């Protein structure tokens, strides 16, 4: 049988047409496979470019605000005779604005058109006027031309976005309103300015006034708590597990535990925070303290894992050398191993913190979602954080909020890029190769 088989074998004829065909096919398959791989990489990259480009393009208009010029008369009867601080505080600045608007647009006579007029100027204008009078009480009884913050209608108008058709929930202006805006525009009474308020103001129900200062400070406070709670704990845990822990079931269990904790969905940490911090310890709902402690639970395993890798990378000879020269084990670790491992630990910490900065879901569960119209001043104040602010604005229908959503995303991504760049810098600059 074997002999029979061998005699039947013919050497492969590589120039045979069928063989050539087969080789061609195999090479074509090779090319296809390679192209497929390349396409997937390009797809992923393309998506990234699309995502970031989309955000940047949509964010751009949010950095422009509108101002409207108005001549305001500070009627002296509104201030009382003494013109004390209290009088200045109590004056009705809205009335001055109304009067100014009525003078500028005398065609508005009935109640509805007058109310419509008031919609030209933002609520914040009253604060601007009050500040002007506080700074210069001589203004009382006089008339001065002000550039006042325009309302959302004015802002959309100067951006040529008013009356965009087909957008759900879009603010629409009546024809008379448009005529007024057109006349103001042609008189040079409208202007575009850089939107500083976006960076200095907290959230607001009025789209043109809403800013990220409140949520950005909320993020800052929250991250501070997270860092303070997670960093020492994580570093100590890493040192203990890597350098001192005896090999037994308990330390094995801790190890498995930490690896599993790093893979637990973040929303579970929100549930833990809600039931322990809010339910059991009765801490303040929505506060950055609770948010920070919740994120600390989530970040700690990440930092532990990175720190352990950093400690492991330090050769044992460093430690042994120190111990041989009479250092105690603790001294060897704290004086010699730790300084060498620190860059790696800090890199891991920054990466963990940047994940905490972008995290949203667990914070929703502890009540950091909702309307917070103030910039938080303490760790117990209710506040939103940047990602939650993005989530809140994304569900608002007004166009200005949509722009602010993208702008807030841009700011968040900027923070993340800075943090990650710092982490990479640390790693490249300080990490020792042994």
């Amino acid at each position, binding site marked *: 049988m074997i002999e029979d088989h061998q005699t039947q074998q013919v050497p492969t004829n590589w120039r045979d047409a069928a063989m050539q065909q087969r080789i061609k096919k195999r090479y074509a398959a090779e090319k296809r496979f390679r192209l497929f*791989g390349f396409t997937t990489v390009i*797809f992923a990259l393309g998506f*990234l470019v699309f995502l970031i480009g989309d955000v940047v393009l949509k964010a751009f208009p949010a950095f422009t605000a509108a101002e409207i010029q108005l001549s305001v008369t500070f009627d002296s009867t509104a201030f009382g005779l003494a013109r004390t601080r209290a009088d200045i505080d109590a004056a009705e600045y809205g009335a001055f604005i109304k009067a100014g608007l009525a003078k500028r647009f005398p065609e508005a006579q009935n109640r509805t058109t007058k109310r419509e007029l008031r919609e030209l100027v933002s609520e914040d204008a009253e604060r601007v006027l009050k500040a002007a009078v506080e700074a210069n009480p001589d203004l009382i009884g006089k008339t001065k031309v002000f550039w006042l913050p325009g309302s959302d209608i004015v802002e959309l108008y100067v951006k040529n976005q008013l009356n965009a058709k087909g957008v759900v929930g879009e603010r629409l202006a009546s024809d008379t309103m448009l005529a007024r805006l057109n006349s103001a525009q042609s008189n040079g009474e409208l202007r575009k300015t850089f939107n500083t308020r976006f960076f200095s103001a907290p959230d607001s129900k009025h789209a043109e006034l809403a800013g990220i200062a409140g949520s950005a400070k909320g993020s800052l406070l929250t991250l501070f708590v997270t860092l303070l709670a997670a960093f020492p704990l994580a570093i100590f845990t890493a040192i203990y597990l890597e350098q001192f822990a005896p090999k037994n079931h308990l330390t094995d269990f*801790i190890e498995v535990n930490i690896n599993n904790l790093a893979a637990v969905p973040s*929303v579970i940490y929100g549930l*833990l925070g809600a039931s322990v911090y809010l339910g059991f310890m009765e801490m303040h709902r929505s506060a950055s303290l609770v948010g920070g402690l919740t994120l600390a639970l989530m970040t*700690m395993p990440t930092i532990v894992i990175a720190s352990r890798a950093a400690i492991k990378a330090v050769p044992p000879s460093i430690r042994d050398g120190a111990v041989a020269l009479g250092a105690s084990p603790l001294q060897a670790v704290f004086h010699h191993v730790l300084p060498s491992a620190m860059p790696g630990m800090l890199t891991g910490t920054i990466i963990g913190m940047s994940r905490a900065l972008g995290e949203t879901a667990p914070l929703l569960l502890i009540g950091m979602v909702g309307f917070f119209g103030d910039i938080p001043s303490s760790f117990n104040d209710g506040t939103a954080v940047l990602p939650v602010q993005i*989530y809140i604005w994304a569900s608002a229908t007004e166009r200005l909020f949509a722009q602010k959503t*993208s702008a807030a995303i841009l700011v968040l991504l900027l923070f993340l890029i800075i943090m990650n760049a710092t982490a990479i810098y640390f790693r490249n600059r300080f990490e020792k190769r042994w």
Partner: protein
Amino acid sequence: MQIWPVIFALVLLSLVGFAVGQWRATVVLSRNEYLHSRPGHHGWYTALITFLPALVILIAVSFYLPHTIDAATLENLPHNEQPVDALSRQVALNEIQSLSQHSGILPSSPAMAEAAKNYEVRLRQATLWLAISVLGTAIIGLVVSSSQITTQFKARSIVEAIFMGGLSLSSVIAILITVGIVLSLLFESIRFFEKVPLLNFLGTSWSTQMAIRSDQVGSVGSFGALPLIYGTAFISLIAMLVAVPIGLMSAIYLTQYASLKMRRILKPVLEILAGVPTVVYGVFAVITIAPAIRAWGQSMGIDATSDSALAAGLVMGVMIIPFMSSMSDDALTAVPQSMRDGSLALGATPSETIRKVLLPAALPGIAGSFLLAISRAIGETMIVVMAAGQAANLTINPFKSVTTVTVQIVAALTGGDETFDSPRTLVAFALGLLLFIITLLLNIIALRVVKKYREAYD
């Protein structure tokens, strides 16, 4: 309560303790030429003895005092204004607190104004007591510990023992977190199942809107979690259909075809996708992708809703790509070079080598990354909260909206009901327990698979 000045003073005292301890030890050393521990250790010892007992008292008092102050303040309210339940108690306390903090607010009743004044006085007293007890303890600690410094005193051993204790204690925290998760989920889930029978939870009908309060008759609501589990699985499936081929193929391309320079640039760039916050993906899904998919569906004559499983799944898939890709990358590079060389030497093309040699060899690692990616997809929250919708549909139409376990967890706890006593909020914990168990199992299996595979080539 003004707690920060006290903490600041305590830290300052501890620094003083360090200086005093070190200085006294130096003095002793200069007189005796022998000292068991270095002056630095004596400094640490004094600082720790100053700091730690006072810290314990600080924590205990600052947890205990606010409760007693609140209780005492409310007790002094007249009988007709006594709060009747937890909610009105909180409302009253909030009013008293804001009255005492801000001057411009009008009290709802004279008794409230009185209470606010009382509250302020109590708060000031409490702060005083806190400061006295904490700083007193610290000073006693400072005096006692600094007087202990002698040539024979083993400051170093004590300091190191304290540090070791701190180290091992902090590693136990990791266990405490897990225990906390399990206990809180279990505890609240049990409370949920006391109100809603298990069979209801395993049903197919999900409408929690009716169950507003637990004491309402005949309105338990239906908590059938099956549509949620189905929706989670459905969206995860779509996500994996995107993430697995793209993640795997890009890993293959980057490890096998791309030049070293290209790989060095492309890999970190791909990883940026993993660093984008999920809420950004959510916004992108709901503002850009979902309308496009809706228009596409309608152009094909399919009745598409603005929330669709497809939009959420696609975007989630992209989010998982870098995760899948980097894990597969690791698995592929772990295959010994000799296997690849052998296959190429026998005349196989690179793609044949990859498909017939590398992939089978790396399969356990890839399977592990697949399982971890699924567990990611199941636990992902923000994308589905924003793009998948609330409607609990059992549908195979990807243009329709489905809801997931995580969406309903968020919905339950952000629905405005802030107390944990109605089944509507408690269901979040039952769902959380379910989610925790599923993801934990997936992770354990994945880690086992990967570990087993690694041993094969070492």
